[in-house]
């Protein structure tokens, strides 16, 4: 437990508050001291913990895979290269079975998404109080360690992918072709307004569902860890809580991997759709 005097509600709320650096009401920039203060900062604020952890994990990914790529050999691979090649081959197989166009960006992007999101999700398995407690000792009040429980992070990634969807759609089909795809489908041309509305919703639903799916899954998982952590009061409830934490962690390991995989695969599917030049309707 972080602090014994907290009520359960406060405990949960504390855990769900980001370390926010932003514009204070008086115009100066500073770290928020409470959830309310963070909320008041509005858009001009940045979640230092989410960004820090996500960038840190991204750098670990780049360092680890970069190291393997630098010392890569076509001969007998070592331990790290084996691991990296296994992941690369898995992603390569997945991508080549879904994506049939020529684009060298897609597979590396899927690899980045899979590994990075997996690592961000994996932070969920670090005991919920450990890092917040340590940072509290260091004088930092809020610390959310799982970047993928922050909608900014997941939606940010989804938006980057959305930009790529638009870019490749226009690049492959031309502006007219892309418009035609949105307007003349699925109903005949006279109903193009209706088509446009329908297809736009479909298009916009892609990044939103992509980002929110990951966020929702991770947020719910994190929430269960927090709720189970509340049980750490007495010996009996603490023991039961510990067992439940362990069980949920085992189950969550599946979700962690699955969500990373789903995010990567859906990205590839959306990219494939963006590249598909459809025949006339």
């Amino acid at each position: 437990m972080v602090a014994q005097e907290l009520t359960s509600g406060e405990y949960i709320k504390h855990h769900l508050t980001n370390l926010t650096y932003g514009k204070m009401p008086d115009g100066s920039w500073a770290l928020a001291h409470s959830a309310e203060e963070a909320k008041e900062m509005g858009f001009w604020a940045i979640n230092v913990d989410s960004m820090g952890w996500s960038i840190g994990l991204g750098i670990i990914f780049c360092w680890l895979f970069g190291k393997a790529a630098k010392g890569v050999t076509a001969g007998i691979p070592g331990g790290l290269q084996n691991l990296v090649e296994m992941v690369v081959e898995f992603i390569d197989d997945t991508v080549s079975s879904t994506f049939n166009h020529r684009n060298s960006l897609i597979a590396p992007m899927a690899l980045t998404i899979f590994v990075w999101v997996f690592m961000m999700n994996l932070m969920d398995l670090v005991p919920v109080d450990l890092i917040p407690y340590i940072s509290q000792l260091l004088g930092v009040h809020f610390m959310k360690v799982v970047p993928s429980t922050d909608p900014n992070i997941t939606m940010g990634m989804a938006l980057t992918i959305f930009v790529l969807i638009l870019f490749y759609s226009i690049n492959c089909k031309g502006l007219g072709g892309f418009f035609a795809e949105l307007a003349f489908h699925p109903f005949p041309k006279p109903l193009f307004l209706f088509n446009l509305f329908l297809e736009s919703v479909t298009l916009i639903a892609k990044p939103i569902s992509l980002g929110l799916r990951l966020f929702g899954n991770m947020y719910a998982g994190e929430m269960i860890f927090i709720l189970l952590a509340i049980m750490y009061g007495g010996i009996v409830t603490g023991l039961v809580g510990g067992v439940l934490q362990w069980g949920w962690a085992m189950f969550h390991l599946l979700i962690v991997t699955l969500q990373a995989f789903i995010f990567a695969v859906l990205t590839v599917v959306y990219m494939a759709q963006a590249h598909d030049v459809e025949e006339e309707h």
Partner: protein
Amino acid sequence: MNINLTLFAQMVTFAVFIWFCWKHIWPPIVEAMAERQKSIADGLAAAERAAKDLELAQDRATDQMREAKVEAQQHIDEARDRAKQMVEAAKDDARLEGERLLEAARSEIDQEVNRAKEALRVQVAELAINGAEKVLGSSIDRAKHSALLDTLAAEL
């Protein structure tokens, strides 16, 4: 839980990581894997070729062995025939030689016999003359009776 600047910061971060992976991580790894795949395929093909070569060589060796066996058998047969012929020839030679020797011996014996007869004849003539001298008590004129003696000796 507020949407704020983090959203855009993450968009940029994400793009940067994708770019890094695209440029610096993915190509060398995939290249190395392809290279290894190729070398394994080459190795397997070479092994297959070598196995085929070995099979061919074995076939050839078997053929050669069979040919050699046949040839050896021929040689053996020829040699046996020749040996038989030589033995036959030697037998014939021996028989002829034996016959020749036998003939020679026989003629020599005949000569000896004749010679002995001749000597005997002379002696018998002498003996007869001596005997007759004794019986008649006088000498016989050799010259007078030589014709008679010669006919006598020839009768012996």
